[in-house]
C-alpha cells in the first residue's frame, strides 16, 4: 500500500503540492489527471524521492528509501534511459541493479513493438523512445509503475496497442499510476481517477462508481475541475460582440 500523508512541495513562491493525502493499493490502475502545472509530475517525483518534500510517503508502512525504491519504476516523457546505450546494454544495466528484472517480458515487448535491438536509443524515433521507456518501466519488476505522460508523441494506434498490451501483461499485484491528458483513451484502462488541481487532490473516484452513476470520466473531470461549459460561447460572444461593436462605430 502506497500512502501519501500531508505531502507538500513548494518551489519558490509556488505550492506544487498542497497537503496531498492519497492511498493507492496493490493492483490498482490509477489515472492521474490535471491541467499542465497542476502537480502531477511533482507528485510522482516526490514518491520517487526525486524532489524534496514535507509530509510522509510510505510503502507498506515504511518510508520510501533506497531499501524499497526498487519496488517503484518510472516511465517519464522526459525519458530516463541512456541515449548512447543499446537495448541490450539497458537490459544488462537493469539486471545488475534490479533483481526482480523481468527478462521474458522485456524480450516479448521488444518483439511486439519491433524495436531495433542493436541501435542506440538516440537513434530511435520519439515514438520508439517512448515505447522503450515504458518497456523498461514494465520490465523492471516493480510493484508500483509510475508513468508520466508516457505516450506524448505517439500516434493513436501505438497508444491503443499499448493499453491493450498493458492490460494483458499486468499481474494482479502490479499497480500503475498513469498521468495523462488523454482522458477518453484511458477511460477503459484505469480503475480509478485522481484529479489534481493547483497541487491539491480535487477528485478521487473509482471508475466503477462513475459507471454506477452513469458519469463519463470526462464529465467527472470537468465537474471536479469546475469547468464552465458555456465558457467558450461566452468568450466567442464577447469577441464577436466587440468586433460588431467596433464595426458599428466605423
Amino acid at each position, binding site marked *: 500500500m502506497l500512502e501519501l500523508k500531508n505531502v507538500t512541495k513548494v518551489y519558490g513562491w509556488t505550492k506544487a503540492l498542497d497537503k496531498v493525502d492519497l492511498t493507492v493499493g496493490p493492483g490498482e490502475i490509477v489515472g492521474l489527471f490535471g491541467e499542465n502545472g497542476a502537480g502531477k509530475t511533482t507528485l510522482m517525483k516526490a514518491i520517487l*524521492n526525486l524532489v524534496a518534500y514535507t509530509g510522509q510517503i510510505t510503502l507498506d508502512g515504511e518510508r520510501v528509501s*533506497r531499501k524499497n525504491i526498487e519496488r517503484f519504476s*518510472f516511465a517519464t516523457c522526459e*525519458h*530516463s534511459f541512456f*541515449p548512447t546505450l543499446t537495448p541490450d546494454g539497458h537490459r544488462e544495466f537493469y539486471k545488475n*541493479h534490479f533483481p526482480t528484472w523481468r527478462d521474458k517480458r522485456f524480450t516479448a515487448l521488444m518483439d511486439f513493438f519491433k524495436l531495433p535491438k542493436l541501435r542506440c*536509443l538516440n537513434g530511435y524515433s520519439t515514438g520508439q523512445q517512448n515505447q522503450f521507456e515504458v518497456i523498461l518501466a514494465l520490465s523492471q519488476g516493480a510493484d508500483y509503475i509510475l508513468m508520466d505522460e508516457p505516450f506524448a508523441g505517439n500516434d493513436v494506434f501505438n497508444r491503443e496497442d499499448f493499453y491493450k498490451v498493458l492490460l494483458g501483461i499486468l499481474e494482479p499485484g502490479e499497480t500503475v499510476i498513469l498521468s495523462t491528458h488523454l482522458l477518453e483513451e484511458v477511460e477503459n484502462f484505469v480503475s480509478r481517477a485522481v484529479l489534481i488541481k493547483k497541487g491539491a487532490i480535487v477528485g478521487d473516484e473509482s471508475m466503477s462508481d462513475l459507471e454506477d452513476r452513469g458519469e463519463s470520466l470526462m464529465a467527472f473531470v470537468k465537474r471536479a475541475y469546475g469547468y464552465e461549459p458555456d465558457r467558450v460561447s461566452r468568450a466567442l460572444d464577447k469577441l464577436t460582440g466587440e468586433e460588431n461593436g467596433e464595426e458599428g462605430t466605423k
Partner: protein
Amino acid sequence: MTKKWITLEKLAPVGADVQKQLRWTGIALAASALWSLRGLLRIVRSMKILKAYIDQGVFSSVDAYPRYVSSAFFGFALLSLVLAGLAVWNYASFRRGARADYLMRRLPDRWEYHRRCLTVPLLGIAASVLAALTLYVLYRAVYWRLFREAAAGVEDPMRLISLSVQAGQRGIWR
C-alpha cells in the same frame, strides 16, 4: 552469493569511454611530471653555478628550495582543476539527451551514481597530488644533495641560501 566485480566500465557514466578518460588522465599526469622537471633543471643549473663561484672563492647564494619549484607543479594543479570539471561533466552527461539521472537517483545502490561520476576524477586528483608530493620530496632531496656538494667546505653553508622566500624580505638575486 556471487561476488560482484567492479569492472572499469562501471567507474564511468553509462556509455562513456572510461579507457579514454583514464588514458587522457595518464597522459596529463605524465605531461605535468615533465613540466615539473623545469624546477629540477633550475635547481641543477643553480647548484652548478653556485659550485663554480665557490670554487673561484666568490660569495654567491641560491634561492630557498620552494622558489625553484613554485611554478613547477602548475601542471598538477591544472590537471586537478580539469578533473574537477570532469566530475561535473560526468554528472551532466546523465542529463544529455534524456534524464537518465532520474534512473541513477532511484537505484537501490546509492553509490552507483556517484561512483560513476567521481571515481576517475577523484583517482586522477589523488594520483596528481601523490605525484606532486613525491616529486616535491624527490626534488627537495636532489636540492639538498647538490647544495651539500656545492657548499662542501664552506663555513656555515646555510648563509648561502637566500631568505627571499620570507614574507616581505627580498634576497640577493643572481
